């Protein structure tokens, strides 16, 4: 379609009319999608942006208060705490996930028995609802009755109180995020591994490269585009973690490990400060944009595109 239109734009009268007609059809055909996009995304986005400059409790009309919300976000100690928690989850989560998933993918890319079965096994948690995952893991972490601590007890190891101590809670949440997300990364890695031509390995072997050298000098460089993609997607996802902490670390209205999105929820829906909550959401969006921008900038230094 794009071709016809551009041809029409430079064409004669007849072509112009035809192209206009075709363009009209084009608009007509994408109208349902665009309408949905406009109503559920663009308008909502615009409304949210406007409301972020308002004091709004969701019960009475919004009152415009300029940059007050954003100024408050800047000074808000609780927001900062939530941000620190979020980063403390995100950084180990992403690093460990990229490494574990690569190991898994390489293991499951070799000729072992029941390969497809294992691949399915590791991918299953990806398809499970986060709330269900959180609920199950909460039981696994139970200090008195949970299997994890009774296992540690049997070997006389220290038994952490997992979810009720903010420090161990970070580890607990990271473990669950890893468990539930590693399968996705593994599948993407597998796809990446399978694009590496076998000849490269043969050539490397002929030149006397051992397994480690083949990995370091062939596999790793050729996987950099995959690693880059996964880290961008992973960080965007991880900075928005909510369901898991909502289900796992909350107890009677309080949360040992509030994250940024949890804080947005709390401010908006519990403390009746929806305008403020929305401005926090925009700040988070901005941060994600900055993170992603930096990643795209840095990729030039380390990502190899063949």
């Amino acid at each position, binding site marked *: 379609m794009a071709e016809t239109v551009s041809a029409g734009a430079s064409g004669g009268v007849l072509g112009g009319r035809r192209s206009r007609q075709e363009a009209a059809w084009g608009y007509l055909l994408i109208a349902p999608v665009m309408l949905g996009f*406009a109503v559920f995304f663009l*308008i909502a*986005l615009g409304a949210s942006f406007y409301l972020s400059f308002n004091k709004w409790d969701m*019960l*009475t009309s919004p009152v415009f208060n300029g940059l007050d919300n954003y100024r408050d976000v800047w000074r808000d100690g609780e927001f900062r705490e939530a941000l620190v928690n979020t980063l403390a989850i995100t950084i180990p989560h992403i690093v460990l996930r990229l490494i574990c998933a690569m190991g898994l993918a390489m293991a499951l890319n070799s000729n072992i028995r029941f390969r497809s079965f294992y691949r399915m096994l590791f991918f299953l948690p990806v398809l499970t609802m986060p709330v269900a995952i959180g609920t199950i893991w*909460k039981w696994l972490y139970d*200090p008195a009755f949970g299997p994890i601590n009774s296992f540690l007890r049997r070997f006389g190891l220290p038994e952490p109180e997992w*979810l009720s101590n903010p420090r161990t809670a970070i580890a607990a949440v990271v473990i669950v995020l890893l468990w539930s997300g590693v399968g996705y990364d593994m599948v993407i890695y597998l796809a990446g591994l399978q694009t590496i031509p076998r000849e490269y390995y043969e050539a490397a072997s002929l030149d006397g490269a051992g397994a480690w050298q083949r990995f370091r000098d062939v596999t790793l460089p050729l996987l950099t585009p995959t690693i880059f993609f996964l880290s961008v997607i992973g960080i965007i996802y991880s900075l928005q973690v909510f369901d898991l902490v909502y289900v796992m670390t909350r107890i009677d209205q309080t949360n040992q490990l509030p994250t940024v999105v949890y804080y947005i929820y709390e401010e908006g829906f519990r403390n*009746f400060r929806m305008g403020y909550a929305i401005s926090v959401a925009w700040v988070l969006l901005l941060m994600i944009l900055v993170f992603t921008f930096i990643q795209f900038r840095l990729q030039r230094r380390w990502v190899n595109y063949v």
Partner: protein
Amino acid sequence: MVPKFSTRVNRRSLLGAAGGASALALTGMLPKIGSAQDASAVEPYNGEEVTITYGFWDMAQEAAITAQLEAFKVHFPAITVEPQIVPWGDYWTKLQTSLSGGESFDVFWINSASLPVYASAGALLPIDAVVGDGGVDLANFAVPLVEMYGWEGVQYGIPRDFDTIALFYNKDIFDAAGVAYPDDTWTWETFRTVSEQLTDADAGIWGAGLQTSWQENYYNFIYQNGGQLLSEDLSTSVVDSPEASEAFVYLTGFFADELTPTIAIQQSNPVADTLFPAGNVAMLPGGSFRAGTYGQADANIDVAPLPQGKERATVTHGLANVIWSGGANPGAALELVKWLAGEEAETILGESGATVPAHAGLQQPWLDANPDMNLQVFIDALEYAHKVPDPVVGFEWQIKIQEVVIEGFAGNIPAEEIGAQAAAAANEVL
């Protein structure tokens, strides 16, 4: 890949259109919420066929409410009431979003802490017209309950039930240990001593089950020790007083010495819902609303007054039915609220055993529904019950206190500092 004709609708005009539409959407939907009108201006129900919705959160009361609505239908055959249960965890979110979306419950439950918030926002219909000459005699309800649902001299709700806190205990655990059951002579010392006696880590039994809920835990102990939650004018929190601090230290001791399940354990095992009815906990300070469930539990449960500190005290609360000010059928909604406050509806509620009816003189059916337990202690407790103060700024201060207390119970901050830190945290939002 971007088709060329997209340049005709350029980004700026698209964003502009979105912005304009957003503004339209905002002005169109928002002012619907607070249509300030009062019941005297409401057109009385004229007998036409209408359907209204009734929102509430407690699954345990579903049967009772169904029975109430069937009885209501007999009196008002043309009014169909659709019950809508939204579990507690989602209730307030649902209420807020539905109010701001302009499509909410016609009649719904509210708690005292939320009343000032919603009343001041104009989301509730004043019901003065049905009070007094309008049909409902507020003298039938305990004063603190009525006061909870008035705001700035206007009545918004009529109490439907009330709760007080008492000490549930598992008779089998006491019998096995050969210890006498709790009674009204108990003090803080008795409670502590017996908790120590009954705790048996090897058998997986805790003497006490101190919940994370403020209402069923530390509020009672603060009042018993002569403390208060807020100053008289509701402007500052006074949980840093020596009286309140002493209560926090006393309670933290149970957690530190593992006489009660730790916070970590309670994270996945709410004591009142799992460990106590399963027989892992000997004593549980709990609300009257738990009696119905405990009557059917496997454990052999009875109830005694809370142990007393310097004085006898408990906190009381009650829920009320209120009306959304933006509903399409306020007349029918008023009829429902009025009828729900009457003897017939309150008797049905009591007979279900799920909660204590608020209407004076109608508690007997509730007592009869659970004859094996000495539930009279909950009703007697009204005499020494305190109402939790509800400032207009909402209930965030209670959560601020809770955050500090949970940290203290978990052992992350020293017990002596709980009061001071909690008061400071609460004062930030008051």
